[in-house]
């Protein structure tokens, strides 16, 4: 009974504690502008199934794909065991599913154990890849410090999860006269030979509680970690845009302005209000989907590894852009939570995404040479395993620079002038159809 009460209290406390940071992430995502999600929901579910659930994009690099799949599959199937831990913990039962499932129970637990061993091997391989092998996409400047530690913490937590589950199962098997026949534990439980029942029982409890506490720890760690992708990958693939990849979002305000300038009928009347800022210089001007992208990022760097600008030594790294957006959204969220009136545009009103200024912007993190280096080739968009679009915010930053700041590469000025004055990307003194005249 004491264990049941303890279990309930620990679980309730941990879930309650995790709720706050998760709600903050939701709030931080909603700092962004509205973006309407249109189009076929069947197409969206297909993306969720194939890309999030089916890991389709991971297959582009097959070694990490296989290793990642072991960890992913183990994670998914272990939910069965976690469910049983919850039932046992609350009801005070022991292996609640075992009697009713019979032979199938043996199969499921054995399956979990085999996948756990594969996941353990994968985790060790990932630790080697992160810490020993010099893999370029894990050695880049944006991974220094916290992102590097974060990746290792996740891998160590995974090792603990697997260790505790095998400790629990093998001690429990030894306690029950090695009759369970679990695929992996049957090879471990002989090591317990000669151990007293009290110790075995304690070990089984250590494994059971240990696994459960690491799960709760993970839950509380997720909102601070790149590991959040295990949740956000699903909504992020669902909400990924379905419109043609080559279509940049139209700007109706400018379209209507230009229409009336050209003497065409304008579709909506300008209300004479001051011109809004165009493009984005901060998270509040990006869309909520841009921000969900940023929080879904697991910093794998597949985008940066295929970026032609990055490959040839330019400062642009699509992964860094996405991480900068996330870090800035967190900074803005923290400052809004502080309630400090120095961050308000209007000190009389409470702080919010629209009533906020701290004298900083994304341009404090992202230098112009980064966004200027982009060729819009979409390699980053193609590469992302969870359908993040790093290009969209880059183009919004460019729009802000050109339209709102009237800055940008000076090389572009002659091009703009020529387009404006002669309708051509190059200023030429000859007719456009000179070529047909020979």
């Amino acid at each position, binding site marked *: 009974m004491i264990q049941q009460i303890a279990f309930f209290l620990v679980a309730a406390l941990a879930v309650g504690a995790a709720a706050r940071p998760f709600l903050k992430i939701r709030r931080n995502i909603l700092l962004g502008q509205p973006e309407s999600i249109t189009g076929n929901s069947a197409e969206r579910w297909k993306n969720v199934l194939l890309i999030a659930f089916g890991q389709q994009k991971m297959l582009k690099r097959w070694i990490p794909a296989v290793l990642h799949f072991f960890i992913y599959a183990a994670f998914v199937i272990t939910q069965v065991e976690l469910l049983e831990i919850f039932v046992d913990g609350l009801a005070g039962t022991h292996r609640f599913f075992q009697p009713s499932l019979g032979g199938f129970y043996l199969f499921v637990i054995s399956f979990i154990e085999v996948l756990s061993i594969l996941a353990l091997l994968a985790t060790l391989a990932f630790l080697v890849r992160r810490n020993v092998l010099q893999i370029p996409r894990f050695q880049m400047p944006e991974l220094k410090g916290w992102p590097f530690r974060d990746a290792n913490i996740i891998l160590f937590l995974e090792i603990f999860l697997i260790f505790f589950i095998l400790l629990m199962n093998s001690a429990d098997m030894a306690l029950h006269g090695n009759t369970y026949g679990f695929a992996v534990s049957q090879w471990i439980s002989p090591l317990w030979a000669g151990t007293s029942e009290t110790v075995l029982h304690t070990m089984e409890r250590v494994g059971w509680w240990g696994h459960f506490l690491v799960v709760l720890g993970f839950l509380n760690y997720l909102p601070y970690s790149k590991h959040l992708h295990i949740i956000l990958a699903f909504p992020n693939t669902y909400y990924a845009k379905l419109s043609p990849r*080559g279509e940049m979002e139209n700007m109706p305000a400018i379209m209507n302005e230009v229409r009336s300038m050209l003497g065409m009928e304008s579709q909506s009347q300008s209300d004479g209000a001051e011109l809004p800022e165009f*493009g984005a210089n901060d998270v509040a001007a990006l869309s909520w989907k841009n921000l969900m992208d940023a929080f879904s990022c697991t910093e794998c760097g597949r985008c940066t590894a295929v970026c032609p*600008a990055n490959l040839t*030594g330019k400062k642009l790294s699509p992964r860094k852009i996405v991480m900068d957006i996330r870090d800035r959204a967190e900074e803005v969220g923290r400052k809004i939570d502080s309630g400090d009136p120095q961050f308000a545009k209007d000190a009389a009103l409470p702080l919010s995404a629209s009533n906020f200024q701290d004298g900083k912007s994304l341009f404090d993190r992202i230098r112009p040479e980064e966004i200027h280096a982009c060729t819009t080739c979409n390699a980053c968009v193609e590469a992302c395993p969870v359908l993040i679009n790093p290009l969209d915010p880059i183009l919004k930053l460019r729009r802000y620079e050109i339209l709102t700041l009237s800055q940008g590469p000076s090389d572009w000025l002659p091009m703009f002038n020529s*387009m404006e004055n002669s*309708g051509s*990307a190059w200023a030429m003194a000859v007719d*456009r*159809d000179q070529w*047909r005249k020979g």
Partner: protein
Amino acid sequence: MSNTIYTMAELAAEGRSPEILFWVGCAGSYDARAQRVTLAFSKILQAAGIEFAILGNEEQCTGDPARRAGNEFIFQMLALQNIQTLEGYGVKKIVTACPHCFNTLKNEYPALGGHYEVIHHTQLLQQLIADGRIRLQGGGDFKGKKITYHDSCYLGRINGIYEAPRDVLKALDADLIEMKRCKTNGLCCGAGGAQMWKEDEPGKQRINIERAEEALSTGATVVASNCPFCLTMMQDGIKAKEKQDEVMTFDLAELVLNHLEKTNP
């Protein structure tokens, strides 16, 4: 068969309207190298007996580089005027030899009210070959020659067109050798996103050199492309590696025309 290339205005004056508009684009109109592609493609259309016309001086830049540079005002200005012109002639179908024009006309003009059937010239070439409207002789200049093909981003990854240009190459009887980074993984030539009009940002090397090195490593003697900007970039890259005497860069239309002239004198 006439060798005259008409504008929409000239045809309209005679009360005629062609089956397809050939959108030439800024590069195709003004860049000396791309002009040769424009002429080659025109000759193929004439050989196939397709009635087409150009806009001539009424054509303006689609606005792609301005939009991608961030200058939406100039994009809208050009796009809305182009749409007005196209509407004036009742244009329904457009072919273009530039994947940037192709993408903007096809994917971006609809939101501004311009709806057309837009195809890229490599798609039309594939159709003409498949329908037997142009015939290429197997065993011609390219038989057994190693050709590598550079996917432009705006035709390939962005619009998913990988097979049409490869089918055309197959019809040339050439020995197609793919680069390691091809199709969805194709490496950009470095010109997109208005990079064509500016100096590179500081870095280790130019993107077109990286791509040219990859093309050269295939051992191909011809680098085929489908985009006037890729063509310039690949040619410059190969020149920088001092291989311009051994390795030629061509647009697919030039390769097809070269074959056509040999077989249909």
